[in-house]
């Protein structure tokens, strides 16, 4: 028995070490990718034909003023020095002031991002929660009527313009049936009294036990969330179907049948557990896509999210806000990608080393 214990301890140690190494690698990748992202945004900021000095002083200022401001803003420094300053500011979260809102960009994003995060999370939960079972069922009963129905639902999901579906759903579920609330995140009655903590209204309301607000926020997020969910469901269910078909044709499925396992266990445990490995990437990418902010959905539902914020800033040549938003989106993308890589490793023992 003694020998047993040492073996399992050693195996545990080996695995723990493996995890540590991959976390370290993860951090290195995170930092270098982030540096790359900052370099790109810095470069974009220099090449766009918008002079930040003119944006501040206006085009009627005398040239001596323009020159003075240019000097003060550091545009006469060598490029590498400018980049270092930019780096320092970005790392400390200083993306400058938004010309449009007159608030620091980081504050604006701090308000807009949670709104998008909440919406994207609800959307992804719906999309994956329904899309994965749909895909599994479609694969198991392939070419049957069930498969066709899932296929049509999916096809509809990604071919119908989301703003049209959004307006239609408002007409039906808000104006006619009154199941959902009107556009916005909260009713006007709550809007000015509710003090958010994290900015995720559902979480904040539940945390502080304000259940009427929770219910109200839920009724507001229901339609846009379901719409984004439907959109990602279309994609996730198709991918799940093809991954599952691939797994169900593998030899180990025949072996599992030869062991006498039930069909349900073979499908939902053996096959889906293997299909989950590539599915992680699909769900993560779809989530990251929604986190960019879905401009159309946010516009239709007056959702004060990141997509709306960046689009507005872009239309008003508010470069600080656009670049700040880009950095945040890039950071989220990097984070989610790395997270899905880590998840991938825990799901597939063959990728652990």
């Amino acid at each position, binding site marked *: 028995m003694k020998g047993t214990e040492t073996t*399992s301890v050693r195996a545990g140690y080996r695995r723990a070490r493996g995890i540590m190494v991959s976390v370290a690698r993860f951090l290195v990748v995170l930092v270098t990718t982030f540096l790359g992202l900052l370099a790109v945004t810095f470069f974009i900021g220099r090449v766009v034909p918008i002079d930040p000095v003119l944006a501040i002083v206006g085009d009627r200022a005398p040239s001596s003023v323009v020159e003075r401001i240019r000097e003060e803003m550091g545009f006469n420094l060598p490029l590498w020095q400018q980049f270092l300053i930019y780096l320092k500011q970005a790392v400390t979260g200083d993306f400058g002031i938004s010309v449009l809102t007159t608030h620091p960009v980081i504050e604006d994003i701090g308000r807009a991002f949670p709104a998008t995060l909440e919406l994207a999370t609800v959307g992804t939960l719906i999309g994956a929660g329904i899309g994965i079972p749909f895909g599994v069922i479609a694969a198991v009963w392939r070419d049957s009527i069930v498969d066709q129905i899932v296929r049509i639902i999916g096809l509809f999901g990604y071919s119908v313009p989301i703003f049209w579906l959004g307006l239609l759903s408002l007409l039906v579920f808000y104006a006619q049936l009154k199941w959902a609330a009107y556009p916005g995140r909260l009713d006007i009655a709550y809007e000015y009294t509710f003090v958010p903590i994290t900015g995720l209204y559902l979480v904040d309301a539940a945390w502080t036990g304000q259940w009427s607000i929770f219910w109200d926020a839920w009724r507001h997020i229901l339609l846009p969330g379901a719409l984004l969910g439907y959109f990602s469901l279309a994609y996730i269910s198709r991918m799940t179907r093809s991954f599952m078909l691939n797994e169900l044709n593998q030899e*180990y499925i*025949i072996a599992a049948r*030869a062991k*006498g*396992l039930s069909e349900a266990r073979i499908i939902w445990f053996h096959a889906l557990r*293997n299909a989950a490995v590539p599915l992680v990437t699909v769900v993560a990418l779809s989530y990251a896509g929604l986190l960019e902010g879905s401009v159309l959905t946010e516009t239709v539902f007056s959702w004060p999210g990141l997509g709306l914020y960046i689009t507005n800033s872009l239309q008003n040549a508010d470069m600080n806000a656009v670049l700040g938003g880009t950095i945040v989106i890039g950071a989220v993308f990097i984070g989610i990608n790395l997270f899905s890589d880590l998840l991938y490793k825990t799901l597939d023992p063959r990728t652990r080393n």
Partner: protein
Amino acid sequence: MTALLTVKNLRVTYPTRTGVSEAVRGVSFSLGRERLGIVGESGSGKSQTGRAIMGLTARNAIVETDMLKFGDIDLMRIPARQRRIMRGKSIAMILQDPKYSLNPVMTIGRQIVETLRTHERIGNREARQRTLSMLEAVQIRDPERVFTLYPHEVSGGMGQRAMIAMMLVCSPELLIADEPTSALDVTVQLEVLKILDKLVGERGMGLIFISHDLRLVSSFCDRVLVMYAGKMVEELPSANLKNATHPYTKGLLNCLPQIGVHRHPLPVLDRQPEWAA
């Protein structure tokens, strides 16, 4: 004595766009607690025969038979659920390549425990104990370690032993081994065969050994059934292989290399259309 398995006029057909494709065309045999080898080239229907007995043909396959009995149980009549329960418990099957036939994301131990817990109501601790002793029975020296390994972490021979352990842990009475050593190195083949031989002998199981290797089958089995194009062309005791009467069997035997004999050109199989008719 009732036979362990009785197969009468087994037919497996697949509907295709251009008509039906007949994989197995009337195979009949009965099996006691003995070793039956089924040999034949690729596409001769030997694997499909094994799958049909297991009830594991592809779902568009049509399996027809005059009789398919396991002991007194009519396999074609019992409900699907009962047939499912018999798999792994009464009839088990070993597949060709452990690289593909073990679930890559489950440890070997869990996969064996799963067979046990599907068929028997036992606790975790007991299942683990029985799994470890089964791993020992297939001559794995370090069962505790192998229990925690994933399939990709073991060699082919070790994987196939784990497969044998997984399929024999519930002590089935009949084992169908579908090319169990074809994916292994020659040296490992012999080890795995020895283990299989020992376990089948000790437990008094019936064995159907499917292979394309006539020499291997004749040395390992009591009887040999030769298949060609979905039909049985000959059935004879291994010892009498030299007295084969069918020209196809003779042709196969003639192709075996002989030490010290220089043959040029190498003999090839001569296929007559009337054998397939």
